[in-house]
């Protein structure tokens, strides 16, 4: 018996490379979902990682950093926000 795969319509779900049950610390929605300002997940609503290893929706974090009270700190640990390379 010889078996050949002639076609394969595969299905996969993508997910951000973050721990499974985590949500964005700012908007509290799943990372795989969208921040309140975006309509589409993924490329349109990317994540941003800080050097402190915390991740957020990019739009959420930018909005946070724009507020004066943020003092350019990570909202989770209050260390100065430095985007990870």
């Amino acid at each position, binding site marked *: 018996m010889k078996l050949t795969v002639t076609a394969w319509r595969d*299905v*996969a779900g*993508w997910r951000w490379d973050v721990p499974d049950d985590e949500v964005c610390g700012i908007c509290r929605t799943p990372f795989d*979902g969208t921040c309140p300002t975006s309509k589409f997940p993924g490329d349109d609503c990317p994540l941003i990682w800080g050097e402190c290893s915390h991740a957020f929706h990019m739009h959420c974090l930018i909005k946070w950093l724009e507020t004066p009270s943020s003092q350019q700190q990570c909202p989770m640990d209050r260390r100065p926000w430095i985007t990870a390379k």
Partner: protein
Amino acid sequence: MYNICGALPDEALQAIVRQVKARDSAPAAGCRAQHGIDQLAAAYGARLRGLRQEAADSNRAPQALAWFPEHLSRVASLFDAFTGEAGATGGSALEPAVRLAWNALAYESFVVAGTGWLEEWVHQSLRCLLRVVEADPMGVLRADLGSLDDEAVAHLRSCCMGAGAQRPESAAATCDDELCRQVCSSEAETLRFLSGLARGCRLLADLSILDAARGAVLDAAAGVVRDAVAAHQMQWGACALASLAQNLGCAARVLDVLLANPPGQTLAAHVETQLYEQFSALRVGELFSIIVDYPDSRPAIDDLRDCVAKLGNMRHVAVSLRNAVQQRLLHPGATTSDILTQYISVIRCLRLLDPSSTMLEIVAQPIRGYLRSRDDTVSCIVQDMVSSESELFEDLESGPAALLDSTPEGIDYDEDCDSRDWQPLPVEAKSVYRTAQRRDADVLSLLVSIYDTRDVFVHEFEAHLAQRLLACAGFDTAREIRQVEMMKLRFGAPALERCEVMLKDMADSKRVNQGIAESGRASSCHQATVVSRQFWPASAAAQEQAVVLPPQMAAMRERFAAEFEALKPARKLEWRDAQALVTLRVQLEDRAIEVEVRPAQAATLFAFQDRPALTLAEVAQALECAEDFALPRLRFWQTRGVLRETRPGVFETVESEAGGSGATGPRDAPGGPPRGADSDEEPDDLGAAAGAPSGAGAEALRVHFNFIVAMLTNLGPLPLDRIHGMLGMFLPGDTTTAEELRDFLAQMVREDRLDVAGGLYKLK
């Protein structure tokens, strides 16, 4: 009288007594003459009775048309003799008394002792007349009598009289139809019939029988109408009412003219009323079937609308249709799609019958309530909505119709008063607000408004869309994009956001796949749809036990994943075996088949590639899954004739069909033609089977089922958590989760061993 007399003064009483005495004594001579007339009348009454008896003996009722005028003429000669003798007795002063006496005689002869001849004669005459009008050999009846001016009447009379001279006895036309045929057979016959008719009518008029016998004439006319209407039973393909009204009206007017009926008491008016009533009764009784036949039965609807407009019996029609619907449609034997189809037809028909939608309101209410109680209503509507041949799709296509509940409260009901064809709502309209809303809604809106919320439709549509998107080859989503756009117009863009994400996933996947294919680093036959987990319906992501794929398949996936992660950094893929489809080419010694299967099924067969015979345990080990999971996959290949079970639990490949047709597996189908890759439902069936509790937990629960039965016997219906708690309490080693138990109980319900209602499980 006594009291009144007591209240009167004496002088007044005296005056009254004097007056009464004076009146009694004055016409003493007249009184004697009256007495003579009475005696005469008694004598003639006896002769009339004799005539009648003679007629009855000769049993001529079937030939009333020909015979009745003869009878009438004999009666007429009696009448002449009577008036002659009476005149000789009393002189012209007594003429009113003579009339009265004769009327009494005629009444007794034609009505009280009614032999039915008058009625029979009118009946046959009218029928023949109707036939003449329908065939209209002379063209004169319709053209001239339609307007009925004096000249035309004179023309008709002269026609009839002129032909009457040589009228011979009509011989043997016994049954009505034969009579009618004979009458219509030639112009001469028609003229002869008309002249006979005219003669009868003139005699009737002269004998002043008509006043006394009007009831019989009207009954006869109603009978003719009944027959004419009954001929149109189940004939919905053409408008019947207008021509019926015209022909019957024309025939009745001819009789009116001949009988010289006064304008207030015409036969035509009576016939018209009868026609509308009886026709309406016929069509109302048939309305349910008419609606089933819609749109072929459109003419019948138009007829009925004319009836309703004339009779104003809208409520009666609606209520009778509602009863028919409840009796014939809203029962467990009708499928939901049938009910929906009929409901849609009901909407369209009743819109025609009654533009104000009042009837629809009455009829639709029970249908809507019943549809709400059916589980599959939403999916039926959504299926219908998106299948491009259906009427609903046209509605969807036709663009934004304001959805009922999206209209702000207090719809401006008066705004359409400006339009010229504004009509007040009928009194039957109970709720002005809702009716006014529904009047303008299209069919789809009415269906959607069955439910208080629109979310159910959007969710159903999402599930439907997900299924279609994953099934579509080559990421061609033009049709789905159009559907989503139309849904957005109707349900609003925010409700369809998830669907848009799904469409975007498809577009992204297409791009990614193209990029990977162009790079040449991945296998060309492997295409993957990458979905956003949060946005695709959860039901489609059925959990399936992951199996270890054979190296060549795993490599394809790995290459794709690597490419994807290079394109989209910081993202990972989770493969969904339950939704993927592999087209597998199986090359055996004497045949080759191509099958579309789930990856787990493919992997099962790949296990046999190196070793032709394996035990169930070995297969399970190779796939790293439970034996319960592997077994259905092995059976699948067994039914395809690729594997056979040589001994219980031992499977081997069927390399050549000729050698393998011995007493092998129980479900082996050697020689059966291998089904091709076109049967899509096979893998799906197996996916569903995987969703059923087939794990070790379910098997263990089967052991406990007797225990659950005893529990339900002793304690009555129980909710899931109680059952779960009891099991945990009495079976300490049991590790069944509530979900497993729920699945298992659902399985028991499917197997008809339990019943579930309102969250309570109970015994059958």
